[in-house]
């Protein structure tokens, strides 16, 4: 490109980022001096202009680190080994390891196409039919919180967007309040709270010794947190561990949260995907609601309806009165408007059409059972293979105890590197594998890889 033009600014902005080019020879300018400075000029009206490159205001912008989860898929794509296996991102695959568009979704899309509906803006809070359907799905249509209109529901950009709206709301109305997140948790949770300006700390969750729940640690840390903290809980199918509290443990968690006047904040990304039953997977949320507690719940339809890229979800806030629900909803809208004005329509219509049609709804439930069933089968086969091949007597039953798309294998960073480098199994460094990316045919190969990594690598 042409000659670099020295910045004509004579004063450098007092920014912490060095913009070295603008410091070059602080030029004081009158119009005469300007036109003499440069060789190449182009007449524009009565004024001589220079066609040249300005120095950038964003010189100090450094390269962001690659996303730890999405980066795994990229590495998988780049690998040429025929044995390669992608157990990275949590997107459901069929037994043939292909992406899957649910049949009910195709049907719903065709219906929408036939009807030829317009694409007008949704209201800020989203599609009314969707909001109603999603709240009913979560709490049950005859739940008192629904009947008494005590839930403020706003359509959000899948789970992420719904969590972000809630985090922004917390920052605005509970300044200084802390969020408590499990250790470990989905990597993006901390980014969301960071960017929303909500301080956070971790509560113990995963116990590497048992490859199970550190229940005592969890309760202790929730108890120790400042009163009025927001406790982020995974409604079902904990990501990344796959370890869920038992119903009894949920009761105790609710006890301590009430005792400390904390506010429960559920992330429900896998309703229906964990056990295969929509109602069963909502039990934890319903338990808390039944106690008369106020709570927040973020939902996503990425996995259970395979609508990943449509970005469809919702934030629900359960309040003690319908009046409060109206006010809270209005403020959630006020946060959404300067973020994206109103949410995308396509995914919302798909969900509303499916949930609103008894036939389609039944079909959906059947497809979900099928997806959850495939994952359970794969877990069983993996467990069986490991037991058959591993003569060390190690207890692999955690694979069966864990639930949902993911399994925390207990492998450490070096061991997972071995998985990738030697066995071409792509997974995240925390030892998480996505069972949705595994099929029965590959279970034996995977067992070999895990056994080798576990026993022969430290």
């Amino acid at each position, binding site marked *: 490109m042409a000659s670099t033009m020295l910045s*004509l*600014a004579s*004063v450098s*902005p*007092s*920014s*912490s980022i060095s913009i070295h080019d*603008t410091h070059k020879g602080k030029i004081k300018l009158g119009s005469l001096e*300007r036109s003499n400075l440069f060789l190449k000029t182009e007449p*524009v009206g009565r*004024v001589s*202009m220079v066609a040249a490159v*300005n*120095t*950038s205001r964003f*010189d*100090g*912008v*450094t*390269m*962001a680190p690659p996303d730890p989860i*999405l980066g795994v898929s990229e590495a998988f794509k780049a690998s040429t080994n025929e044995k390669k296996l992608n157990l990275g*991102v949590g997107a459901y695959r069929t037994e043939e390891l292909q*992406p899957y568009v649910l049949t009910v979704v195709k049907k719903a899309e*065709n219906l929408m196409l036939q009807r*030829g509906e*317009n*694409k007008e*803006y949704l*209201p*800020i809070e989203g599609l009314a039919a969707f909001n109603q359907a999603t709240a009913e799905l979560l709490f049950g249509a005859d739940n008192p919180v629904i009947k008494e209109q005590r839930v403020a529901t706003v359509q959000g*950009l*899948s789970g*992420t*967007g719904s969590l*972000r709206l809630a985090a*922004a709301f917390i920052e605005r109305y509970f300044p200084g309040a802390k969020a408590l997140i499990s250790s470990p948790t989905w990597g993006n949770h901390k*980014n969301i709270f960071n*960017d929303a300006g909500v301080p956070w700390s971790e509560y113990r969750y995963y116990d590497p010794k048992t490859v199970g729940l550190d229940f005592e640690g969890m309760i202790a840390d929730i108890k120790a947190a400042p009163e009025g903290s927001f406790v982020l809980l995974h409604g079902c199918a904990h990501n990344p561990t796959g370890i869920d509290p038992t119903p009894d443990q949920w009761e105790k968690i609710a006890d301590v949260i009430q005792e400390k*006047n904390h506010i429960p904040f559920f992330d429900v990304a896998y309703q229906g995907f964990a056990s295969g039953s929509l109602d069963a997977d909502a039990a934890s949320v319903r*338990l808390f609601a039944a106690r*008369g507690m106020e709570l927040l719940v973020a939902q996503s339809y990425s996995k259970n309806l*395979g609508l990943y*890229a*449509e*970005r469809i979800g919702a934030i629900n806030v359960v309040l*003690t009165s319908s009046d*409060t629900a109206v*006010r*809270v909803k*209005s*403020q959630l809208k006020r946060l959404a*408007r*300067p*973020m*994206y*004005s*109103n949410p995308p*329509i*396509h995914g919302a219509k798909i969900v509303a059409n499916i949930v609103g049609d008894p036939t389609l709804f039944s079909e959906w439930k059947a497809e979900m059972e099928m997806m959850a069933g495939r994952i359970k089968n794969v877990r069983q086969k993996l467990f069986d293979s490991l037991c058959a091949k591993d003569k060390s007597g190690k207890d692999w039953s955690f694979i069966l105890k864990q639930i949902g798309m993911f399994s925390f294998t207990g492998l450490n960073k070096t061991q997972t590197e071995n998985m990738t480098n030697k066995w071409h199994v792509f997974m995240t460094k925390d030892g998480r594998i996505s069972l949705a990316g595994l099929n029965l045919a590959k279970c034996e190969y995977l067992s070999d890889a895990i056994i080798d990594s576990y026993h022969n690598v430290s």
Partner: protein
Amino acid sequence: MALSTKLFQRSSSTAVFGARSMSWWRSVQPAPKDPILGVTEAFLADPSPNKVNVGVGAYRDDNGKPVVLECVREAERRVAGKLNMEYLPMGGSVKMVEETLKLAYGETSEFLKDKRIAAVQSLSGTGACRLFADFQKRFRPDSNIYIPVPTWANHHNIWRDAQVPQRTFHYYHPETKGLDFAGLIDDIKNAPSGSFFLLHACAHNPTGVDPSEEQWKEISYEIKGKGHFAFFDMAYQGFASGDPERDAKAIRIFLKDGHLIGISQSYAKNMGLYGQRVGCLSLLCEDEKQAVAVKSQLQQLARPMYSNPPVHGPLIVSTILGDPDLKNLWLREVKGMADRIIGMRTALRENLEKLGSPISWEHITNQIGMFCYSGMTPEQVDRLTNEFHIYLTRNGRISMAGVTTGNVGYLANAIHEVTKSA
């Protein structure tokens, strides 16, 4: 199930926490109604058969009905149920972004060839502006944003929620209902060097007042002289004159003059994809390396907001723009929409003049794009709504897209009624 008995046991201990049933959210006041979207809500609630909605800027055909473009319907037929819905990359659809940049920067733009543009798919124009505002806050924390008076109300909300302090610059001249060019230039000159300026690339919202080509050249010169950063909000490319190339003129002037600009683009109006939320944020960088770094940071901001953007809208956009026949159809349809609006401007002005209005209504045809800044006061607007069931925003902004051959007479009459004694 075991749970239900446990619930029964729990109910006694809930009584202990009964005092806790006071809400956490007492302090939450009801939010004020959105001034723009609230208008449509009020319109929908009005039972009057004569009601007219000239509030929100969504295009209507001559029957007052929302329009789905033919090119869009065709694109939808092609994509329905075919592709899976796997996550897009954080930066969105690469294909759509490429096509979108061509529209703004030019089909054969050297900046595209040299890969100097950092660009990501965004949640329409709002999302693009917000991403930019957050980026500005993160990487230029000491900077302000200069916003024209008046502007789209949500601009204020966006930069405020991004915590970037706002300043204003003169734009609209109430006396002439045109551009306050001298005031604008003064403000550019008086702003501290290296300030950030928000400019509407074409079809200024809400006034419809655009600088002329000569004026844009002058604005570019002055902005360059002060080393300011120019950020363009282009929500109406194609919609202003009917010709997308022409509507990008201001941007092309700045590019030629060597500015490193930022652009927010939206397909809400020009492709009628409102509810799909399709747009693009781009920043012209010094070189490819910088563009890669900037893009990575934009993605870093998007990830905790929504992870990755929706797929459906961009599928439609890239299907249309990637097929020469569909693209030509789109261009014809956009021109058709722009022409209808220009026709309605003429009709409204003529009607008012025929009624013998004492005021000049020249500005209706001088202004361009979807909106007309009528010059009516909030009180006059209230009368229009309360007495005539005509819905518009209280700043007197009329969405010309809501004017039809069927209602232009009624609208002119009503406007005449409330302004004749002004």
